[in-house]
């Protein structure tokens, strides 16, 4: 009986993973220490690219924008999807139907979705302002508005805010709304699966003791679901750091506008690497910094999980 070695079975997958996942990461480290000019890789410059990043205002602006995105998208998505999942879990009739409806945005392409939302946010012919006018509000600038949302909010009640409290621009906030909308379906499904794993006896015991529905939600559901919450939080954080298509398709011209308030870090990497400057080693260095940030946050969340776990 002739046997193939086990390595023969692994080989096809291993070739592709080593060649197109492992080696690129090595390349990434290597080229980030070199200069890049029009005809390709230049001389060794050590940590120069990394020092340049620290002084790069555009990098910091993209980083701040990305942090706003993460800070607003992740918690909002978590809260809404937990509420949705609870509502879905409390019904039987039509549950599968609603689940399907909520999930549709998750399977559709970000490109088509972004095109549609860009037109929805159009100032003159968009659905968003149409609905605002219908309920008696002033139309908004949405993707064209570079003023911060907190500034706009306080302006409407006649207060002025100092510049550092103005928050993300309304344009970035529009992107945030789309990202929340897009992430809800997936997170709801994950939460629903988590909820179905909580043994019913806890709720029965609580009911006998006379605990209200909201008491049960905060004292049983929230702690019991915390492992799922950590998973969802981690996944959403990682995906939100990588937002690209929404910005690429919904904003501009120039992309990242108005006034760079929607420029996010992955778009900045793309622009540095493949835009006018075409500096692949600098772009590589930024990508590695982003990877470092994502890894650090993931580890922090893992550590947090150990402490707060029920």
């Amino acid at each position, binding site marked *: 009986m002739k046997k193939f070695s086990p390595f023969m079975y692994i080989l096809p997958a291993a070739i592709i993973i080593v060649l197109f*996942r492992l080696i690129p990461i090595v390349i990434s480290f290597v080229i980030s220490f070199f200069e890049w000019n029009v005809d390709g890789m230049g001389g060794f410059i050590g940590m120069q690219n990394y020092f340049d990043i620290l002084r790069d205002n555009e990098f910091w602006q993209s980083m701040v924008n990305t942090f706003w995105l993460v800070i607003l998208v992740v918690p909002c998505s978590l809260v809404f999807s937990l509420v949705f999942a609870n509502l879905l879990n409390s019904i039987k009739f039509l549950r599968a139907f609603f689940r399907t409806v909520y999930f549709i945005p998750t399977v559709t*392409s970000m490109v088509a979705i972004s095109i549609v939302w860009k037109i929805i946010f159009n100032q003159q012919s968009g659905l968003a302002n149409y609905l605002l006018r219908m309920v008696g509000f002033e139309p908004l600038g949405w993707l064209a508005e570079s003023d911060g949302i907190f500034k706009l909010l306080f302006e409407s009640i006649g207060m002025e805010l100092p510049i550092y409290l103005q928050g993300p621009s309304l344009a970035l906030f529009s992107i945030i709304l789309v990202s929340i909308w897009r992430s809800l379906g997936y997170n709801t499904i994950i939460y629903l699966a988590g909820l179905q794993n909580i043994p019913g006896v806890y709720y029965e015991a609580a009911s006998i003791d006379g605990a209200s529905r909201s008491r049960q939600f905060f004292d049983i559901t929230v702690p019991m679901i915390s492992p799922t919450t950590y998973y969802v939080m981690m996944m959403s954080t990682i995906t939100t750091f990588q937002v690209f298509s929404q910005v690429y398709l919904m904003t501009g011209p120039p992309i990242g506008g108005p006034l760079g308030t929607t420029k996010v870090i992955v778009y900045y990497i793309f622009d540095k690497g493949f835009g006018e400057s075409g500096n692949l080693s600098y772009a590589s260095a930024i990508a590695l910094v982003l990877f470092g940030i994502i890894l650090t946050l993931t580890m922090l969340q893992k550590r947090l999980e150990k402490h707060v776990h029920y």
Partner: protein
Amino acid sequence: MQRIGKGLIYFVLALCGLTMIMPFLWMATTALKSQIEVNKGHVGFVPIDDFSYYHDGAVEHRVKVVSAEGDSAYVHFFDDEGFIIRDPAYTYIKVPAAAVHRERKVVPHWENFTKAWNKVPFGRYFFNTILVSLTVMVGVIVTGALSAYAFARMRFIGKDFLFYLFISMMMVPQPIYLIPSYVLLNHLGWIDTYQALIIPWMANIFTIFLLRQHFKTIPQDLFDAAAIDGCSRFRMLWQIVLPLSKSVLATAAIFSVIGSWNSFMWPLVMTNSESLRVLQVGLSYFSQESSSQTTLLMAASTFSIAPLIALFLLAQRQIISSFASSGLKG
């Protein structure tokens, strides 16, 4: 009280559900409107045409009323395409007001779909996307089944090391290896080729993980019995493992197709020529080139997502449960 509570839950769910699909409803209905109506600021969900007509005694003409004075009106004439005729013989014509009437009716403009389809080679884009999605899917299943089989049912040196090396590669987000991959593919001369779109994606670590977990659950007795009958290791994979794994293989295939169909950043960076554009890239260029033609953009968006929504609705139970279990295992 209980009943009111249930009613309220259904009301909230329906309201949120409506919000979730509102963009799609608006996309589909805007795709059916005439561009003139959209430019006039007609926003609602019904494709209504609202035009003035002038009956000259023999034929009816579509016109734009510029001004009216007593019992006569000044009008511009439209051509068949819906544009105002700039020829002075047809602009600012004085006609009796009684012969002009306004009409509002529901007219779905299905021709927007054919117009959008013919404006750029969407047929080619679809072909590219389908070709890439299917070959990648076959690749992912073949490489995944082979390696998962080795990881789940064989013993060899360095097995755990290799497995965890693979898993750790899964942690690296795509934007991180995009730039070095470009450098690598450029070096291989693969930029702007089908290989660049297909080969790097022919192995999927998540699929290997998913299949390995499932292959491990198959009882050892089946393998022992087959070994006594002199069945080779490869035949065991073919005749025992795969037939018992149809559902998980279908899950992996669906994940792969959804991933390739929606992939955007990679093909955007790795291809330049129009003949190699996949659907998402083609759609993105189309949206930049025809940004003012909202009805055509909506039509193109509609037919770009329709196949995947159809696949999803057909296999929604399978897709949702596999997404859900992807969460529990992680």
